[in-house]
């Protein structure tokens, strides 16, 4: 039989291992939980990425794309994205005195069309110089230009030149020349100054040209390359095209976003902050003070925004041609807080009556602890959602005010003012309207969907679900 040896350790009591409720997953804070829930909401997540992308586009964009948004490229007006940029290097433009001839004065003879039209020089975007054979008996000529052939019904197109001197048999066209094909027609006029029925047409293919100086100053050739006449280069790149004054659309969109997003983020931050302070004060104090404060908020709601915007503009001494952004910001902040204030007051009033507040008070919680620890966190969801819904509204207000000319001063772009400019050229150059309009729509939609997602994610009562 084996001897049992006992040591002191054997006499310690056996600990009872009680398997209580085990926390199988790591504990989640309020924010982590909200983030988890937001992550599962695909729409909100994509919107979040879009918002971040927009911020990067706005803040970092101008460092990458360093084109001055106010610089006017008069050689590329209203050019759509992806336009042909080939150009030939030529000598600078020199004025042309034209060609005159003395036609035989044959009177009484029927006036016909000119025998031939020639190009006095190759047709370029600098100038198209036409000369033609004199028409006997003509008192002058009319020059027409078309984008289509005048045949068969004699639609000659744009009346670009009137010549009242019978001896002048040349015309220099400088009007809005683009690298395209033009049909030039010459019609003679009779002694009453009326056009005759016959005409002669010349088809001209215009080529894009730049001068040596332009090629160097615009950096179209390499840094150490000396451009030669006749070299082929590519004119300045505008990825999203240019507007009606040849300004780069991409640069303008980036700078325009600065104005739109600046207003769109600063204004809601401020008026929501004011709204929280005002609303929580009213809600927490309650009684007569609450009544008074909320009636004042009602009064502010009734004030017309546009009128105040104009009044602030005058009060701030904003002269004509100066930016109206600051008065717009002030007017937005001063007039938009009551909505948040009402919302927060309602929440606070509700929370004040909750049982856990009473319990907390019984346990000796001070007022500031109650507000910081219980009231604010429980209203935070509402507040954040208000902000995200306010952002698109404010962006829209800015766009609208710039659209009617109350916002930014030219040449500063903003999406709204760009839309306003683009709408005038909508039919011929749709890209000038589409890009800013698209950006406004995307931004507003993204903020709305994000706000929607945040409302679900931040709702504290949904925390224990799932």
């Amino acid at each position, binding site marked *: 039989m084996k001897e049992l040896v006992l040591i002191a350790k054997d006499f310690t009591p056996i600990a009872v291992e009680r398997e209580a409720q085990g926390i199988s997953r790591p504990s989640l804070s309020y924010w982590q939980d909200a983030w988890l829930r937001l992550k599962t909401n695909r729409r909100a997540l994509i919107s979040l990425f879009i918002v971040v992308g927009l911020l990067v586009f706005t803040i970092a964009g101008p460092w990458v794309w360093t084109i001055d948004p*106010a*610089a006017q490229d008069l050689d590329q007006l209203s050019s759509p994205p992806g336009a042909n940029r080939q150009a030939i290097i030529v000598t600078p433009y020199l004025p042309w005195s034209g060609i005159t001839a003395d036609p035989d004065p044959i009177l009484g003879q029927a006036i016909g069309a000119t025998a031939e039209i020639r190009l006095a020089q190759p047709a370029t975007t600098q100038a198209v110089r036409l000369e033609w054979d004199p028409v006997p008996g003509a008192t002058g000529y009319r020059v027409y230009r078309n984008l*289509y052939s005048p045949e068969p019904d004699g639609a000659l197109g*744009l*009346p670009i030149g009137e010549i009242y001197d019978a001896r002048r048999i040349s015309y220099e066209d400088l009007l809005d020349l683009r690298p395209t094909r033009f049909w030039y027609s010459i019609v003679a006029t009779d002694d009453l100054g009326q056009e005759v029925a016959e005409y002669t047409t010349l088809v001209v293919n215009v080529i894009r040209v730049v001068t040596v100086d332009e090629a160097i100053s615009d950096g179209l050739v390499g840094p150490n390359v000396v451009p030669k006449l006749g070299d082929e280069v590519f004119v300045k790149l505008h990825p999203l095209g240019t507007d009606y*004054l040849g300004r780069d659309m991409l640069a303008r969109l980036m700078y325009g976003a600065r104005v739109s997003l600046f207003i769109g983020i600063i204004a809601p931050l401020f008026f929501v902050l004011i709204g929280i302070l005002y609303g929580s004060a009213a809600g927490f104090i309650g009684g007569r003070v609450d009544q008074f404060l909320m009636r004042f908020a009602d009064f502010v709601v009734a004030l017309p925004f546009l009128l105040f915007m104009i009044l602030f503009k005058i009060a701030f001494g904003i002269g004509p041609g100066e930016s109206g952004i600051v008065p717009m910001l002030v007017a937005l902040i001063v007039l938009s807080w009551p909505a948040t204030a009402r919302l927060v007051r309602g929440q606070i009033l509700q929370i004040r009556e909750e049982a856990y507040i009473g319990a907390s008070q019984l346990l000796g919680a001070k007022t500031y602890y109650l507000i910081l620890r219980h009231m604010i966190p429980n209203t935070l969801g509402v507040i954040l959602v208000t902000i995200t819904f306010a952002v698109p509204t404010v962006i829209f207000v800015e766009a609208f005010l710039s659209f009617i000319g109350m916002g930014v*001063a030219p*040449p500063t772009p903003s999406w709204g003012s760009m839309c306003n400019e683009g709408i*005038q050229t909508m039919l011929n150059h749709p890209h000038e309207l589409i890009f800013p309009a698209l950006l406004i729509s995307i931004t507003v939609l993204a903020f709305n969907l994000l706000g929607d997602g945040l409302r679900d994610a931040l709702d504290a009562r949904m925390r224990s679900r799932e």
Partner: protein
Amino acid sequence: MNDLKSGTRDALTRTASTQLIWLGLAATIGFAILMGLLYWVSALTGSHTATLDAIDEESGTVTLLLRTEPPQLDSTRATDSVSISVLGHVMEGLLRFDENNQLAPGVAERWEIREDGATFWLRPDARWSDGVPVTAHDFVFAWRTAISPATASEYAFILYPVKNGESINSGNLPVEALGVRAVNNQTLEVEFEQPLAYFEELVAFSTYHPIRESFYHSREGRYGADVDDLLYNGPFEMTLWVHGAHVRLEKNPDYWDRERIRLNVIDMPYFTTDATSALNLFKDGKVAVMDYLGAEQLNEALQQRWQLKRFGDGSVWFLAFNFSPDRVTSNWHLRKALQLITDPSELVNRVIKLPGNLPGESLFPVWLQGVNTFFRQEYPVPKIELNLEAAREHLQIAMEELGLDNPPSIALLVDDSPGAAKQAEYFQNLYGSQLGLEIRIDRQIFKQRLAKMQNQDFDLAVYGWGPDFADPLTFGELFASWNPNNNGRFNNTEYDESVRLAQSSLNPQIRMEAFARQQEILIEEVALIPNYERGRVYITDRRLQGVVRRAVGPDPDYTNAFISSD
């Protein structure tokens, strides 16, 4: 449990989205059907208007568009082009403009202009639309009414050449002192304030139209306010005026030269300033004329193969300066610097892009007649060479003289039309990038812009001036120190003397030399920077012939128009 829950939820979401898609689809289709129905209903009820053509050869009717309702058909008060155009159809003065824009006899059969006055012999068959003859008394009454300070006509100044006109208008003399007298029913005697070279041009203007005194008083202040409140003596009479909606003119059977008039009805049931809707009306064949096209509509017009025409509307557009001593623009070197870098050709050809505009070189447009041929051919404008270096030097001097360290900031006043905004931004960039000037664009609605100009609340302003009569004086006078429209208060003694000489002299040679001197002074002093002479591109239906466009007088003019059958 969790899996099951989320599975159910996924299924629910899927069903919900399917439902949503079906709902959207149904809504779209339903909407389309509704629209189709509405279109069908409107076609049923409005078929008689839908099939109406802009030109009806059988009845001699032409349908047209008016830019706005005529604001004022009282000829003594009318100032705008729409009113003047309508008045040109329903009224006739002593003289009128014919289809070649030459002066032709109107109510006056013949006339005689002397150094101290003029005599007009009225035709006996000129009739008001109620059959009563037009007499010399009607002219005396109309002119007295127009000049009377009680009428407060904006165009009273156009009667100043008639003796005592200015004193009467400023209230110093009674209206009876006006130098016009009816010798008998058929003879009108006019006395001039001073010798006058262009009186024939003036009497064709609408302020000089006749008004019958008895009728004017019978309307009790409503003269010209409605169809029944006007008497007509022109080729047409107004038969319908629905305010804000519709104006119809019909051939006046009492008009003395009725054989000349070939249209029976001019119907104007559309009022719009919107170029796009005007274009659509023309495209649909609802109107026969589109009186001007914007740069944005040219491509469409080319595509539609319309026959485009061009005419110069006579107006000159320029940058006006404020010469008040407290403004930086009163500095000659600053103005010179701007002049040396402004290229009107680039503005016209690259920025405005409308065919028809001519690059501006002078205050006096190319169409003005000189002694023998065009004024500008006889007296060419001194050429200005663009020179950036010189411009910068002038700016430097200007800054020293003004005691500035940095290039000044300048307010540019423009109206709120899209074209004006575009020009303003072009100038802003030009002067900003080349000279470093900060240009603040002050966009105002038309009336506010005029008010600001009159209050001299501007540095630079985009300004246009249209002629009142076809003589260089209508432009030259603009910069005379006493002219209320000289908003920048340009004040030059030699210029004033030269204007007075042109006003009083009867010798064409002396007058044209005076205008040439004015042209030089304006350029030397940089009183303005010419931008362009405005031209208009317009389209008429190919069947409508004989439409006259003109710089001076009623425009557009359909009195000579006719419908050709081919």
